[in-house]
């Protein structure tokens, strides 16, 4: 019997080894297990639906599609390839060929991936004829974007191939597929793209298709993308871009009644069609690489400027709400405002009203620095400590959507900056600082930063006398109105305080700083701004020409448009920003512009010399440091 145990143990051990081995290859060893798609037995054929069209608020077609063709490759299936002939046919060189093959092999030797994307219709015709020679390669047709306007590139965005990170994260996408990468193409990718159809095909080991996999249980039909309508008024957008040519900056116009974004201009811009097709990656490198003009940088959403004088309006509202002033409270201006004992502690003012008590209304239309410095100081000093004062002030500011993301439906943005006590306590040791240390906040300089869209939203809030709707860009999905943003956001300022402010802003056009931009037919309210700005070059602060800023809304009694404009290095707010705002309001409300001389003046106005000067000082500095 003892001898009989040998075979007994053999049987037990072999059985156990087999089960362990099965456990290893079927459960532990992941490589073998992943979906049927990862082995060559099943192939998926994708059916790509057409991407949804994009319209502006008036039904003008902005983005459509055109046919395009991709050359696909399944690396495992390549056989007897005449590499040179293929390279000649599709006009790439050998090194590029090798690179592309490697890339597709890394993605998967079994799965199709895009070898060369977006060849044109003409190229397709003769490549198609010879494609049969190259086993493992085939052509797949797909539609490609076509932008119908040379405008609003920052709004529309663009589509590009998905990157590897995203493929890992989102199983919907396969290597080489397209995805919205910026603008509404990114924001509303899932609505626009629809859902691709899938057909699972069973193959045999000779790679022949032998029928549908599991009788088509997993197959799905493509769901077409939905058309969308934007809130953008493309005519106004194009008009604004024309006025802004040869200038840098951002313009945002909002319908205060709904929060709909009417224009979202960032200059300089580019033709959206540059980011389509075979040339896309080349152009993309060029556009993203332009560190000087930065056309891919959306100044309307991403640029953070000191708001300058328009910020005085909010400070006045806070003062009224906190009860530190009434519309009748008056201050004197001494060509400025002395806020400390040293002679340096002086804020200059150019309002020119001397020896005359300045009340709120005049302070606004004359943009008196001294007045608002007084208001600001009173506001902060109303509280026991400047920390508490600044936090109360900061809370009011945040209720206007300043100092934080607004929450609009576009994929990029900046917070801007509204300082609070924490910020100053960090910068001043032991929290030892007084309200006067932050006095620049009174006139929208110093630590305060806003983006153009924040400022436009602020303008809309004033027009609405205390509330706003979050700005948004989507109006309709197919024919269904988009209602995600119809929630009213109320500020901490009572409605009654807006009346005197709006009156002051009305006077800005009537007799104030923007009187040259006044127009008879429309009652406009606005506020000019001129913001000092500095660039830090290797630790040294260099001052450049002031930014020209303007906010406005109209008509006064029934606001239909609220607008904010930043023109980089444009000088006084009244010289460039105010006329452009005025012209755009006229265009939007009346449909035409009668002030052709002013219009032409703005179109012709070029600030290129300013930018060249900046470039020169930057590069010359680099030279000297080298």
């Amino acid at each position, binding site marked *: 019997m003892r001898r009989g145990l040998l075979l007994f143990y053999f049987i037990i051990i072999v059985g156990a080894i087999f089960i362990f081995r099965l456990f290893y290859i079927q459960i532990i060893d992941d490589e073998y297990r992943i979906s049927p798609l990862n082995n060559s037995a*099943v192939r998926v054929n994708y059916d790509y639906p057409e991407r949804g069209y994009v319209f502006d608020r008036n039904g003008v077609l902005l983005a459509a599609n055109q046919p395009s063709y991709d050359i696909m490759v399944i690396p495992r299936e390549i056989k007897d390839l005449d590499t040179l002939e293929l390279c000649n046919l599709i006009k790439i060189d050998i090194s590029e060929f090798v690179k592309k093959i490697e890339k597709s092999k890394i993605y998967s030797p079994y799965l199709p991936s895009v070898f060369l994307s977006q060849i044109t219709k003409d190229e397709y015709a003769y490549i198609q004829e010879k494609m049969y020679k190259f086993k493992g390669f085939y052509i797949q047709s797909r539609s490609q974007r076509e932008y119908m306007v040379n405008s609003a590139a920052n709004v529309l965005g663009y589509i590009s191939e998905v990157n590897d990170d995203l493929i890992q994260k989102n199983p919907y996408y396969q290597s080489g597929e397209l995805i919205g990468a910026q603008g509404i193409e990114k924001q509303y990718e899932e609505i626009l793209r629809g859902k691709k159809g899938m057909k699972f095909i069973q193959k045999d080991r000779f790679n022949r298709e032998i029928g549908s996999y599991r009788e088509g249980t997993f197959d799905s039909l493509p769901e077409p993308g939905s058309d969308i309508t934007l809130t953008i008024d493309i005519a106004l957008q194009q008009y604004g871009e024309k006025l802004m040519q040869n200038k840098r900056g951002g313009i945002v116009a909002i319908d205060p009644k709904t929060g709909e974004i009417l224009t979202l201009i960032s200059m300089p811009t580019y033709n959206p069609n540059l980011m389509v097709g075979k040339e896309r990656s080349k152009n993309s490198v060029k556009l993203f690489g332009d560190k000087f003009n930065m056309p891919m940088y959306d100044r309307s959403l991403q640029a953070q400027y000191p708001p300058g004088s328009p910020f005085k309006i909010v400070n006045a509202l806070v003062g009224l709400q906190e009860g530190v002033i009434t519309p009748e409270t008056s201050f004197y201006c001494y060509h400025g405002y002395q806020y400390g004992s040293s002679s340096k502690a002086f804020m200059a003012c150019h309002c020119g009203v001397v020896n005359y008590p300045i009340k709120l209304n005049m302070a606004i239309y004359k943009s008196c620095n001294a007045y608002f410095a007084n208001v600001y100081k009173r506001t902060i000093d109303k509280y026991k400590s400047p920390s508490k004062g600044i936090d109360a002030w900061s809370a009011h500011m945040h209720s206007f959507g300043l100092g934080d993301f607004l929450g609009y439906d576009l994929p990029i943005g900046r917070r801007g900056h509204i300082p609070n006590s924490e910020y100053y306590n960090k910068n001043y040791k032991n929290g030892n600082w007084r309200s006067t240390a932050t006095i620049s906040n009174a006139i929208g300089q110093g630590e305060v930063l806003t983006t153009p869209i924040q400022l436009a939203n602020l303008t809309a809030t004033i027009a609405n006398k205390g509330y706003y709707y979050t700005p948004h860009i989507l109006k309709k999905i197919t024919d269904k109105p988009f209602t995600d943003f119809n929630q009213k956001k109320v500020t901490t300022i009572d409605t009654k305080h807006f009346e005197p402010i709006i009156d002051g802003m009305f006077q800005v056009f009537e007799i104030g700083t923007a009187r040259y931009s006044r127009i008879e037919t429309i009652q406009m309210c606005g506020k000019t701004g001129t913001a000092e700005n500095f660039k830090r070059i290797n630790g040294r602060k260099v001052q450049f020409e002031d930014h020209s800023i303007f906010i406005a809304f109209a008509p006064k009694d029934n606001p239909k448009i609220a607008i904010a404009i930043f023109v980089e290095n444009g000088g006084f707010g009244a010289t460039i920003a105010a006329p452009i705002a005025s012209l755009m309001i006229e265009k939007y409300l009346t449909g035409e512009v009668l002030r052709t001389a002013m219009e032409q003046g703005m179109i012709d106005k070029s600030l290129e010399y300013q930018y060249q000067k900046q470039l020169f000082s930057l590069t010359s500095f680099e030279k000297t440091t080298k």
Partner: protein
Amino acid sequence: MRKQRNNIFYGADLLLILLYTSLIILGLINIFSVSSTASNFEAFSLSTRFGTQLLWIGLSIPFIIFVFFLDVKLYERFSSILYIFILIILAGLFVFGKNINGATSWYSFGSFNLQPSEFAKAITALAVAKIISESQFDLRKVRSQWKVFLIVLLPAILIGLQPDPGSALVYLAFFFVFYREGLPWYYIFFGMFAVILFILTMAFGKLTILISLIVLTIISFLYLRFIKMRKFKKFGIDIIVILILSSTFVLSVDYIFNNVFEQRHRDRFMVILGKTSDTKGIGYNTDQSVLTIGSGGFMGKGYMYGDRTRGKFVPEQDTDYIFSTIGEEWGFVGSSLVIVIFTAFLLRILYLAEKQKNKFSRIYGYSVVSIFFLHFMINIGMVIGLLPTIGIPLPFFSYGGSALLGFTLLLFIFIKLDANKVYEW
């Protein structure tokens, strides 16, 4: 007693028959899956392999009855004649045989072929049982050893020459029987030692193994010299002899490998050792088979839903590689269940064999379990990528009429012998 005598099935081991039946049914289910194409689900047609297999199963029932019908004594009595008969039949293949897939292993009778080597196993087992059970026979004696070696070698050589090295290899199973019946342990020991040495030499190279052997010898030498001094005198010489023999063997591994084996065997061997990795040529079968089993995961893809089975990625999937279908469609759960059932089947035969009072029955039973075990080990070991590609069927699963019938006879002769033990009190 008489009444029981009249029932020819009386005493048959029901558990074993149950295990046999479940293996047959599982095999049939999987052959159906493999032989159906994606669109063709014709079940009961003789034109499909499923239909043919079903026919063979039906055909084996009268054979089973026939086995039970015969008197037990006849098996013992006729084993010599049968043995000589099967040798003639095997030799006749070289003249009348039909060549299928490169091996002349079949007699062709019109539309169906018969493979005598599948029946030779049972007959050799009978012959071995008979000779060892003779009263004067003693496996400790060299003369007796040569006798049984010859009995096993003759059919093995004839089969190996067909050439069907896989089926010939199965005859190694008899060494379990010989060992059980008294063959000195060092036959088995040296046999295994040679196999392990061969594999290690192939894997790590001659020099490494030679050095290791010498080091091992020195260590054991020192051990005996200084710690077990009394045993030193007894084993000292033996150790030197073993060293010389094994070194010679190691040095001749290349010669054996290059001259005894054929190129395809060499290739398969190298793939398993990981010396060459070729997933398209030689390694294709194993690679695809392992991939297919692995893709089954824990629960499998479901019956008839194995995409790799549908796509016929594994060659010979209804014969030698049938287990890969089980792995893919039934997953870890199903395939390990098959292993468990098979192991239970083997252990049951082993258990019954050991219980036999009659020496002939015991040796025959032991031969049966050894043969099934070798098939099981080599076939599944190959399919799951642990052993080199050696083409032998998985009993009751692989498609093939002769094999099915051969295995059934092999098993049921034992069941009959076992059933008879009740009369031998």
